């Protein structure tokens, strides 16, 4: 067993884990955070995407021990209970989902993408989400949701500047 200390959604955690425990299983089964899904389990589909120190990663291909000393953010940690992060709100508003299985990964990949490129073009959105597969939507509403989220977040920034 190995001891890890991880900050998950802002809360410090310390756990004894088997070295072979995957980060996605640590989140789902040890911490009970079920947003990140196990889809393909082969680093292809992106349903398990979370942020590790602010960058999107596929948590089926990260060991929990590799997250030692780092910050992890899952969809549960994006907004306070009962509220939606602008990316989540945009996915709802634009109906960027059908069955919903890929959605937590899509949302986390989008949060990561917009942190690196706050004003992506449509082509940059499609390329930026190349690591996330959706078998239902055909992607059009997902792309609309990401562009909508970028606009909403830019508007919120402007409002904040005006208020300040």
């Amino acid at each position, binding site marked *: 067993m190995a001891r890890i200390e991880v900050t998950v959604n802002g809360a410090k955690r310390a756990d004894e884990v088997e*070295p072979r425990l995957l980060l996605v299983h640590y989140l789902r089964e040890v911490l009970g955070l079920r947003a990140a899904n196990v889809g393909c389990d082969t*680093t292809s589909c992106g349903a398990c995407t979370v942020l590790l120190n602010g*960058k999107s990663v*596929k948590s089926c291909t*990260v060991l929990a021990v590799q997250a030692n*000393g780092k910050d992890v953010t899952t969809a549960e940690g994006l907004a306070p209970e009962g509220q939606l992060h602008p990316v989540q709100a945009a996915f709802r508003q634009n109906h960027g989902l059908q069955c919903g299985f890929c959605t937590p990964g899509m949302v986390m990949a989008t949060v*990561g993408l917009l942190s690196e490129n706050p004003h992506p073009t449509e082509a940059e959105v499609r390329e930026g989400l*190349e690591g996330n597969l959706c078998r239902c939507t055909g992607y059009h509403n997902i792309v609309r949701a990401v562009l909508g989220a970028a606009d909403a977040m830019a508007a919120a920034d402007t409002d904040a500047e005006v208020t300040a």
Partner: protein
Amino acid sequence: MIPAQFDYFAAESAEQALALLAEHGDEAKLLAGGHSLLPMMKLRLAMPTVLIDIGGLDELAGVSAADGELVIGATTKHGDVATSELIRAEAPLLAYAASQVGDPQIRHRGTIGGSLSHADPAADMPLALVALGGSVDLRGPDGTRTVSADEFFQGFFETSLAEDEILTAVRVPRRPGAPWGYQKFVRRSNDWAIVGVATIDGRIALANMGPKPLRATAAEQALASGASAAEAASLAADGTSPGEDLHADREYRRHLAQVLTRRALEHQAG
């Protein structure tokens, strides 16, 4: 899928990692980003009983400029290679190749040293290193040796890295302004190349046209003798005998090598 059991050591220095390698021999594997190794372990294609994690070692990461070459730490992530201003200015072919690895999540974790050590003949980093005529630093118990790309890649997923050595750094020539081209043929955007071609200043390298990245020497010689891009490209598959799989048979790969070489030569940046 869950990997088989192993003991895990987070190395605190490259020196300590070397000592652990010496102690555990061929039972041990080095872990950095884990984006080649962990999928193999999940599929039981690799079952090391000891993992030595060098992913957290700052001494093995980062980019610096030396005389005539760039030195890139082995654990530098693909995303950082792709966006490094120094690499984009001095070796833009390498930065572009890094931007073509996998997808954003993979580029946030996978490392240049890991990809080169894995030596997948369809991968972007080995292709770029051979095209650029780069080299790698291999550190062992008796010191560090620098090995050229041609000597490093030995065969199918096979390199000259010894069991007690660590690939610590990657060296590529500084070539600002040299004309380069990169063509990668895939069916899905985040895939490995069915065939890949990288060109820089008269050098032509091919991915997935054999067990390791190859130089298209006949096409290079034609270019040097004044042949047009199209004439040289028609020789790009000479001497190759690529493998066959679901995506492409041998003749199709040979055809792709010619088409992609022509495109790479005709649409060079720099």
